[in-house]
């Protein structure tokens, strides 16, 4: 196996036994990036020099025999929406094309302290708004399984990098499905933690009550390791929860015998691709053979999840993105200007792409006087009902399974002309963000054209352990069916 093909847990053994060095692994990954990034556009910025310095530092710690965690010396890719001190952080936007943060986000600081190596910042839909990574100022990322197809979004670059072995693991963010859906389209594992588990300090905000940072990895074991490393209370994030971080890897071997798995009937209605449904049904059969108990559950307000999300998220975004005005940082339009107001309007018009402008407009409209009650407040009330649906359903089951997305990866350009069609690809993922619940996507098959299909497992708040336990059992059972992309 080439070093770049390894997992976090596989490499950790080799690094600790000094069978390989972090520098060798990092070089292996960087060489592969140099060879393939032009084709797949996973990375916006490659930090080769600093990565090698970090790798050498990790090797020093390893050769001294210091006790190190599993992430020491491991090359990671970071979605370009997390602040990295001294490294350009663009959020996939012209607005921040030359912005260099003066501080690290908490997640980055934690990973640095753990000895991780950062190989680069990955491509994404602009300001995390999108489901395909086509809304990036830097162009789309291409799906390693079929290069004329999207990687999903908004964490498309991270999912692409993991699928194509351009990193050992990656960090993404998920506001309406932006980790899970690209993981599904790219045949990798992706998890969104419970809201409040992972600090958002340093995460460029899209929708503050929905955003979460999470791992994108080659397998469930790696997911549990990376999740454990980034979780934890942070006083610098006022929405961070003071609760102990479970030792997630300990849950993996518990199995699913006797576990009650809910299947939400509303997730199996029209719009679901036949091959995707078939793969999910097969997965359900596999769980039954492993001794899980299936429970039919209902989430009656599922059909309202998309309108609720696409009212709340843009409303929050319109507030969060008000800061981009060309005054203190970021893009500023070229003058001369009659006054500040004109400079600000021109800066925002030129700095933001079409989808971002659309969502700002939508959010501003929903919050404006005369419309606030009918749209924004109404959406928040229905959000309460969606949360209640889950609370009731989870009284009868421990986890739920569902498709991650209604289809496999669509073609680049296929949905850009129809924003509404694009929004509908989030139908199975947004509810977890609205309710603040954890969810994972694991590969569960491929369609006739070889495109990956994702199985989603949702859990109770702060119960990532059971979600990982369920995911691991499934992965363990179906591992021989996993196919790496041919990179034709």
């Amino acid at each position, binding site marked *: 196996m080439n070093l770049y093909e390894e997992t976090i847990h596989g490499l950790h053994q080799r690094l600790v036994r000094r069978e390989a060095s972090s520098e060798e692994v990092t070089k292996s990954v960087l060489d592969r990036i140099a060879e393939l990034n032009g084709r797949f556009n996973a990375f916006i910025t490659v930090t080769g020099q600093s990565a090698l310095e970090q790798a050498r530092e990790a090797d020093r710690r390893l050769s001294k025999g210091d006790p190190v965690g599993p992430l020491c010396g491991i090359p990671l890719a970071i979605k370009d929406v997390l602040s990295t001190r001294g490294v350009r952080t663009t959020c996939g936007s012209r607005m921040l094309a030359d912005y260099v943060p003066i501080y690290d986000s908490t997640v980055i600081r934690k990973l640095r302290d753990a000895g991780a190596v950062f190989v680069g910042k990955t491509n994404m839909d602009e300001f995390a708004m999108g489901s395909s990574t086509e809304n990036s100022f830097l162009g789309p990322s291409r799906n390693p399984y079929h290069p004329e197809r999207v990687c999903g979004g908004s964490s498309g670059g991270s999912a692409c990098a993991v699928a194509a072995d351009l990193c050992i693991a990656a960090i993404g963010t998920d506001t309406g499905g932006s980790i899970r859906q690209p993981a599904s389209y790219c045949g990798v594992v992706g998890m969104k933690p419970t809201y409040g588990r992972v600090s958002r300090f340093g995460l460029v905000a899209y929708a503050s009550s929905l955003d979460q940072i999470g791992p994108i990895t080659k397998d469930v074991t790696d997911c549990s390791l990376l999740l454990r490393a980034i979780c934890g209370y942070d006083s610098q994030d006022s929405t961070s929860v003071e609760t102990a971080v479970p030792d997630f890897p300990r849950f993996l071997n518990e199995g699913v015998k006797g576990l009650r798995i809910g299947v939400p009937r509303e997730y199996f209605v029209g719009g679901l691709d036949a091959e995707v449904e078939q793969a999910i049904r097969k997965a359900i059969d596999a769980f039954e053979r492993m001794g899980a108990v299936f429970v039919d559950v209902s989430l009656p307000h599922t059909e309202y999840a998309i309108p609720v999300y696409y009212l709340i998220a843009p409303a929050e975004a319109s507030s969060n993105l008000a800061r981009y005005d060309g005054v203190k*940082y970021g893009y500023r339009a070229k003058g001369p200007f009659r*006054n*500040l107001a004109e400079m600000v309007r021109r800066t925002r018009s030129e700095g933001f792409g079409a989808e971002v402008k659309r969502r700002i407009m939508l959010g501003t409209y929903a919050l404006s006087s005369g419309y606030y009650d009918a*749209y924004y407040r109404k*959406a928040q009330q229905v959000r309460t009902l969606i949360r209640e649906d889950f609370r009731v359903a989870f009284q009868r089951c421990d986890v739920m399974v569902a498709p991650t997305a209604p289809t496999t990866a669509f073609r680049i350009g296929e949905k850009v002309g129809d924003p509404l069609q694009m929004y509908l690809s989030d139908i199975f993922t947004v509810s977890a963000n609205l309710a603040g619940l954890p969810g994972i996507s694991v590969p569960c098959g491929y369609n006739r054209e070889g495109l990956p299909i994702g199985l989603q497992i949702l859990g109770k708040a702060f119960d990532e352990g059971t979600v990982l336990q369920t995911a691991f059992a499934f992965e363990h059972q179906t591992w021989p069916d996993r196919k790496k992309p041919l990179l034709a």
Partner: protein
Amino acid sequence: MKVDKKEVEHVAMLARIELSPEEKDLYSEQLSAILALFDRLREVPTDEILPTSHVLEISNAFREDELRPSSMPQEILGNAPDVSGQFFRVPKILE
């Protein structure tokens, strides 16, 4: 709910965004289509339902009002498009 051109212009003004005539037409059409989808929310009974602004049972997080280290002015000014001394320079604000 049809969003006409006047409303698009009003919203653009609130959002401090300048739109071209083509963009005004496009957004009018697209926003109308998107909002039509949202009109379905009307059919959901929500009379006694409290809105969720936040999924967690937490309230405002405060810290002690003590001096702590902050960033250096030079660092903060490093990303500025136009600087004058320790100030951010902008076009005039008042006529």
